[in-house]
């Protein structure tokens, strides 16, 4: 059976950062991603990121991915990469991991340590006909457009005015697709105000306190009905039919944590982090002594924080494996913890801080 020191599951910003950091201390890393290419969400982010200069604010997401790929390449003697390769199971009895490469190449790996950086899954909401072709998650639309260069349709209803809904609306317009409207159940956009202003001034209406009532169509989406709702989310009776061929759902993400459940990690339901997440110590180790977690899989946040968490998890792993000088590792850890605290400072970070407090343990040693 194949063996490795560190298995990193997921090659998004969190997994890439974990692999780079662990390999920089000499650990032998295997990095697996189910996608055809590495980069996770980053490779479809054509917009400029927020944040501070340290976290590459003002740089487009896919450019940040390119910088990470470069770092990965510099450490290639220590990192073996598998793409189109899904980790499908974890066997608690002996710590063996099962994987599928492509359609049918099935194999096992036995890692000493694992970093789970599996990212997030998109939520969907129930409404009549939501099974019709033409109802997409916002992430899928982004992949189609920005990775494969395919426009999903001609006229879009966006459901949800959080940052993802607003940003994907803007990117749809960049691709020449008409965004007919954005509906938002709350009485206020959930994303950054500047992102909303950006789509508004290009003529896209944002309907607050509205939701999608149903999709119209027989074999595919031929329209949508939206309806107004009150503070208790009950329909007021005001409805409007929109001529659209795409309904794009941007109603939130939830951490991908099946493997963590299989491994028996202690999990908590934390609404602020958008679902079930593994309890972790300061250096991202779960209750399982050989498993770390990082990025959206540890709670829905941002690429900027995912990268720092990945680096912290990578350091936690090398420390446990006995690589590197303890003072050097400690120094780097302190720096990364400071960066995380900066990223999570202020009002916008308050929810994340609360959430993390709910699933953090001081230490797993008794």
């Amino acid at each position, binding site marked *: 059976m194949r063996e490795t020191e560190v298995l990193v599951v997921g090659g998004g910003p969190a997994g890439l950062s974990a692999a780079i950091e662990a390999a920089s201390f000499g650990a032998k890393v295997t990095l697996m991603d189910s996608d055809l290419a590495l980069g996770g969400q980053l490779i479809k982010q054509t917009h400029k990121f*927020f944040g501070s200069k340290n976290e590459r*604010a003002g740089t487009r997401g896919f450019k940040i991915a390119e910088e990470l790929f470069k770092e990965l390449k510099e450490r290639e003697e220590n990192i073996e990469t598998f793409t189109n390769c899904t980790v499908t199971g974890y066997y608690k009895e002996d710590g063996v991991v099962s994987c599928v490469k492509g359609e049918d190449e099935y194999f096992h790996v036995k890692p000493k340590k694992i970093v789970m950086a599996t990212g997030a899954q998109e939520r969907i909401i129930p409404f009549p006909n939501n099974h019709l072709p033409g109802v997409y998650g916002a992430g899928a639309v982004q992949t189609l457009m920005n990775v494969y260069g395919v426009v999903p349709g001609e006229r879009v209803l966006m459901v949800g005015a959080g940052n993802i809904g607003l940003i994907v609306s803007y990117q749809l317009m960049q691709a020449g697709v008409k965004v007919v409207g954005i509906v938002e159940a709350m009485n206020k956009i959930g994303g*950054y105000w500047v992102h909303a202003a950006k789509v508004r*001034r290009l003529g896209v209406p944002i309907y607050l306190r509205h939701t999608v009532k149903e999709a119209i169509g027989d074999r595919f989406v031929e329209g949508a009905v939206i309806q107004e709702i009150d503070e208790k989310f009950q329909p007021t009776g005001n409805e409007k039919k929109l001529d659209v061929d795409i309904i794009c759902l941007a109603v939130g993400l939830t951490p991908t944590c099946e493997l963590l459940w299989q491994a028996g990690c202690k999990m908590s339901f934390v609404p602020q982090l958008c679902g079930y997440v593994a309890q972790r110590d300061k250096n991202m180790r779960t209750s399982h002594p050989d498993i770390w977690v990082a990025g959206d899989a540890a709670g829905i946040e941002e690429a900027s924080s995912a990268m720092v968490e990945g680096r912290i998890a990578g350091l936690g792993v090398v420390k446990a494996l006995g690589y590197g000088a303890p003072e050097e590792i400690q120094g780097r850890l302190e720096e990364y913890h400071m960066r995380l605290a900066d990223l999570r*400072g202020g*009002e916008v970070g308050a929810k994340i801080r609360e959430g993390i407090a709910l699933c953090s343990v001081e230490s797993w040693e008794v």
Partner: protein
Amino acid sequence: MDEKEKLFNSGILTGERKGAIKPPKELWETKKNGLVVIECPQRIPCNPCHTSCPTGAVKPFEDINDQPQIDYEKCTGCARCVAVCPGLACFVIDLTWGAEDKALIKLAYEMLPTPEEGQVVDCLNRFGEPVAKGKVVKITEPMKDKTLVVHVEIPKDLVMDIRAIRVV
């Protein structure tokens, strides 16, 4: 909630707010090359407008979540902030430009098709409604990152309305 607040909550600026104020009238009317107009009224973790400003006109942020504050005396209208702001919230407006009833707006443009110098485009207000025609005077790509800064001649009385263009 009143109508104004509702509009604001959907991404339309209604009146001045912290992080979204007009430059002082007198300085603005005489400053060649224009002054920055930033519309970033919400506290968000972002500061490239400050870190990229070559003159220090966007004052240092005490906390990265602060709204931008401006020292107009220092602003040269260079439009670097226009090019870097990820929220496309920075504009430069030059009231000294051209004929008496004209002004120049420098705004970020990331759509297709790309306008050409000399072309007449639709000027849109904050709702995206066309409110005037404007002539494209100049196009630059300061950061060489595909975000264009387009200089458009617009009617002076609409400088606080026009915030986007559509190439027709």
